[in-house]
C-alpha cells in the first residue's frame, strides 16, 4: 500500500519557567493510505501533542514529518464538540472552507450533500443547541471532511459523549470514514474504541511518549465497531494492550 505520511524521530519539548518537559521522544511511524491508526497511551503521555504537531498548531522540537505530497490538507477533529453556537449547522460545516478560502459553489454543494447523506438534512438551518450530542459530533466530522483532507486526525473525539452515544457515534464515524476512504489517525484513551475502529494500534509509554508496541488488528469479518466488541479476538487484543499500559502505571 502507498505510504502517505512518514514521521521520523519526532521530538517535542515544552518549556515553562519551572523547567522543560519532554512530551514526545523519538516517535517514528509510517502511515499507509486509507489506513486507520489508533494511538493509545496513559493520560497525559503526550499523544494529543503528536496530532497538534501533525496539523501544524504546535511546533516540533526535532525530527521530520514527511507527507507524500506538498500542501497536504489535514482535518482535525477535537475532543469537545467545537461547533460554534452562533452558526447554523450548514455554516458550521462550511467554517473550514470559509477560513482556508476554498468556499465556492462546488465545495458548498458537496458539503450540503455530505450533510444530507449523513442524516442531518432536516437540521441544516438549525443551531447546534437543538441537536443531540451524537448529531453535533457528526456535524463536526462533516466540517472536517468538507475541506477534503488527505489525513483525518481524531483527538479523543468521542470522549465528551456518554457511553451509549459513544458506541453509536463510533459506528457512524467508522462507516463515514470507510465510505470516504480517509486515512485516519485517532488518539484515544479508550482501548476498546481503538481496537474496534482501527486497523493498527500504537501503544505509547508514559511521558515522554515513546512507541511501546504496535498491534495490527485483524478480525475475521469486517463489521461495525460495536459488533467487533462482541468478538472473541476483541478480548484478546484488549488484554494485550491493557497489560502493555498497566506496566507503565
Amino acid at each position, binding site marked *: 500500500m502507498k505510504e502517505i505520511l512518514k514521521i521520523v524521530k519526532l521530538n517535542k519539548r515544552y518549556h515553562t519557567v519551572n523547567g522543560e518537559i519532554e512530551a514526545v521522544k523519538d516517535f517514528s511511524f509510517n502511515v499507509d493510505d486509507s489506513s486507520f491508526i489508533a494511538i493509545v497511551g496513559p493520560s497525559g503521555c503526550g499523544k494529543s501533542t503528536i496530532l*497538534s504537531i501533525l*496539523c*501544524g*498548531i504546535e511546533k516540533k522540537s526535532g525530527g521530520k514529518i514527511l507527507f507524500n505530497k506538498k500542501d497536504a490538507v*489535514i*482535518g*482535525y477533529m*477535537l*475532543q*469537545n464538540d*467545537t461547533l*460554534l*453556537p*452562533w452558526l447554523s449547522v450548514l455554516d458550521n460545516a462550511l*467554517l*473550514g472552507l*470559509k*477560513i*482556508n478560502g476554498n468556499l465556492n459553489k462546488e465545495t458548498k454543494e458537496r458539503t450540503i450533500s455530505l450533510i444530507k447523506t449523513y442524516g442531518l438534512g432536516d437540521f441544516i438551518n438549525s*443551531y447546534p*443547541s437543538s441537536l443531540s450530542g451524537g448529531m453535533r459530533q457528526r456535524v463536526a466530522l462533516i466540517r472536517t471532511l468538507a*475541506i477534503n483532507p488527505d489525513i483525518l486526525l481524531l483527538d479523543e473525539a468521542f470522549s465528551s459523549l456518554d457511553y451509549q452515544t459513544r458506541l453509536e457515534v463510533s459506528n457512524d464515524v467508522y462507516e463515514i470514514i470507510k465510505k470516504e476512504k480517509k486515512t485516519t489517525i485517532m488518539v484515544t484513551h479508550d482501548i476498546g474504541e481503538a481496537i474496534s475502529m482501527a486497523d493498527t494500534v500504537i501503544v505509547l509509554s508514559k511521558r515522554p511518549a515513546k512507541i511501546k508496541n504496535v498491534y495490527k488488528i485483524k478480525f475475521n469479518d469486517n463489521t461495525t465497531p460495536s459488533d467487533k466488541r462482541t468478538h472473541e479476538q476483541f478480548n484478546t487484543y484488549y488484554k494485550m494492550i491493557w497489560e502493555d499500559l498497566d506496566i507503565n502505571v
Partner: protein
Amino acid sequence: MSEEHKVYLKKIKKKNRLVLITQIIVFILFIVLWEIASHYNLINTFLTSSPSNVVKTIISLYKEGNLFKHIFITAYETIISFFIGTLIGLIIASLMWWNNFTARVISPYLTILNSLPKVALGPILIIWVGANMNSIIVMALLISVIITIINAYHGFSNTDESRIKLLKSFKASKWQIFTNLVIPGNIKTIFNILKINISMSLIGVIMGELLVSKEGLGYLIMYGSQVFNLNLVMTGIILLCCLSIIIYYIIVMTEKKFIKYY
C-alpha cells in the same frame, strides 16, 4: 397537548401576571401615598415635593419650551459619550487581545485608572476642555471607557481554547480568529458592556452637568437645589429615570433581535 400541560402553562402565566400586577400596584401605591401625605401635610412638600407638583412642573417646562430641550441635551450627551466610550474601549481591548505585550504594559495603569473616582478629574477637565458640553462628554466617556476595556479584554482573552485550536487547524490567521471567533463569541459580553455603559454614561453626563452645564436634566436638578425648588429637583430625577429606562430597553430589544441562537 395534555390537560395537565395546559394546567401547568396556565399556572405559569398566572404567576407571571401576578408579579406584573403587584409591581404596578406597588408603583401606584407609592405615588398615591406620596400625594395623599403631601395633600394632608403629613410631609413637608417644600422638601419632598409631590406627584401633582411634579406634573405641574413638567407642564410648565413644556409650555416654556424647555422640557424637551433639557431631555434632548442629556440624551444627546449620553448617547455621544456612550458610543465613543464603547468604541474606544472595544478598540483598546482588541489591541490588548491582539498583542499580549501591550496588554501586560497597560494592565497596571488600567487598574489605577479604574479605582480612581473619575469625578475627581472634573476640575481638570473644565480647565483643559472648557466649561462646556465637551467636558461633560469627556467626563462621561472616561467613566465608561475604562470599564469597557477591562470587561471586553476579560471576555476576549477567555475565548475557548479548543475553538481557537479548531480555527488554527484550518490555518486561520489571527484576524480570522478575531472576526470569526472572538467577536461573535463575545457578543453577549459586548451587550452586557453596552448595558453597563449606558448607565455609566448617564452617571458621567449628570456629574458633568452638575459641575458645568447650563442645560440638561443634571442642570435642572442642580439649579433646582440651588434655588431650593424641590419640585424641579424631583422632576429632573423622574425624567432621568424615564430616560435611562428608555435607552436601556432600546439596547435590550437590539440584543433580542441580534442573538437568535438561544
